């Protein structure tokens, strides 16, 4: 590898100052499973690598006072997938993290790094879109919170500003009656990069949606109230659906029309229609892994599988009886 300096900053301000001073010749390091490959391949030639893993909280998963789950940016895929609170309440994210590469790679690869690389095929991202995660960054102007759908700005582009780095991923509380399913296609059944992926999430109750299908700014969501109201509000039996698509657009994408259609009609016909609407929300390209047409077709298939799996998990009648998955 091209020589570079390796620096462990002592605190957040020092880390930010180092990144700010260095511009493109200074790179932050979390798991390194993407960064080191790009350095070795000569795609980037950093002079300094700033290891952020030892900063306070970066490797911790904690419940905040407001009931949110806070995942430190340097938590590994295996750490997140195996955490009891993730498995109990955000199992969709565990499914997505467990689908990444191999077991030993997941011991290094981090959820934060997966998002910061901002590959359209980042497998943790569709799950985080469905869970309406809020990304917390630290930078020269202090702490900034960015909704996940604003964090991904294009292929390999994120919303971080010069001197900023991701510190944590904040997940709003979820009702106990909720379920998710992550499905992806690769060249092999497990371990490969996604050709296309779809995450599906449903939870009891409904929330007001703004234009574009994104919920209101998560900072204004009172998580504790939502949890307390779980199962008691009169619309508790109404399901709110979220569908996010990976590797079929410049960023992960939500499919708001499909989500709204499912809330109205989750019969087998409704599921088929929603799956088609999800495919229409995709913005795929032709590349070495697949054609745009194949990706779009597979979004419909994976969306249908995901919705049926979620319905089954929630105890609703599966929309395909005795048919293909």
């Amino acid at each position, binding site marked *: *590898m*091209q*020589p*570079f*300096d*390796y620096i*462990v900053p002592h605190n957040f301000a020092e880390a930010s100052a180092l990144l700010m001073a260095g511009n493109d010749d200074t790179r932050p*390091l979390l*798991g*390194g*499973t993407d960064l*080191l*490959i790009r*350095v*070795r391949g000569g795609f980037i030639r950093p002079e300094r*690598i700033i*290891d952020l893993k030892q900063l306070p909280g970066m490797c911790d998963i904690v419940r905040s006072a407001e009931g949110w789950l806070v995942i430190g940016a340097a938590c590994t895929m*295996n750490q997140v997938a195996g955490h009891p609170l993730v498995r109990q309440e955000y199992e969709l994210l565990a499914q997505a993290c467990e689908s990444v*590469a*191999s*077991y*030993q*790679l997941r*011991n*290094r690869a981090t959820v934060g790094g997966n998002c910061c690389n901002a590959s359209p095929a980042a497998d943790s991202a569709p799950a985080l879109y469905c869970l309406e995660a809020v990304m917390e960054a630290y930078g020269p102007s202090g702490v900034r919170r960015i909704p996940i759908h604003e964090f991904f700005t294009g292929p390999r582009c994120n919303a971080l500003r010069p001197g900023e780095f991701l510190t944590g991923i904040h997940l709003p509380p979820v009702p106990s009656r909720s379920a998710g399913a992550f499905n992806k296609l690769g060249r*092999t059944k*497990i*371990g490969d990069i996604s050709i296309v992926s779809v995450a599906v999430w449903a939870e009891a109750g409904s929330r007001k949606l703004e234009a574009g299908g994104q919920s209101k700014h998560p900072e204004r969501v009172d998580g504790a109230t939502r949890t307390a109201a779980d199962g008691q509000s009169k619309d508790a039996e109404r399901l709110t659906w979220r569908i996010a698509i990976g590797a079929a657009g410049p960023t992960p994408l939500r499919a708001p029309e499909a989500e709204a259609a499912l809330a109205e009609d989750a019969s087998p016909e409704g599921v088929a229609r929603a799956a088609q609407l999800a495919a229409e929300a995709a913005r795929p390209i032709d590349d070495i892994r697949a054609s745009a047409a194949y990706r779009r077709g597979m979004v419909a298939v994976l969306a249908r599988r995901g919705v049926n799996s979620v319905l089954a998990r929630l105890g609703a009648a599966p929309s395909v009886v005795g048919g293909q998955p």
Partner: protein
Amino acid sequence: MNHTIHFTVNGEPFTLSVASHHTLLQVLREQLVLTGVKNGCEAGECGACTVLMNGEPVNSCLVLAPEADGATIVTVEGLAHDSQLDPLQEAFVAAGATQCGFCTPGILINSRALLDRNPDPTDAEIRAALVGNLCRCTGYIRIIDAVKAAAHAQREVQP
């Protein structure tokens, strides 16, 4: 730029001066001459460089040498104890689960970690655990057989 790291490899403590841009793989092979750790793809795909870092398998080609400061590392050279092969090594020999041998150290290390966290894995669990270890000679049937045999042998000893 060089860093001084303190770490434990196969039970023995070391203090080394390592370059910032060298990997744990390079340090193990070139500075400690533990050539059982293989350099395959250098991209985290093949698993030939797998070692245990604090008890968990990692691709040592994707760990920077200074990141190993304070870590406990086990390589394939550390699996046998007092001239007694690990049950996995015995099973690989008995099953003929090795041909050219290049992938074997990484597979042994990764399988060791698997059996440590799951003493009775199913075929599917073994396949999932070893998805990051590529073998280009034998295919995987005998490797999976050997892991199952080792799990069985281990349960006989420690029921």
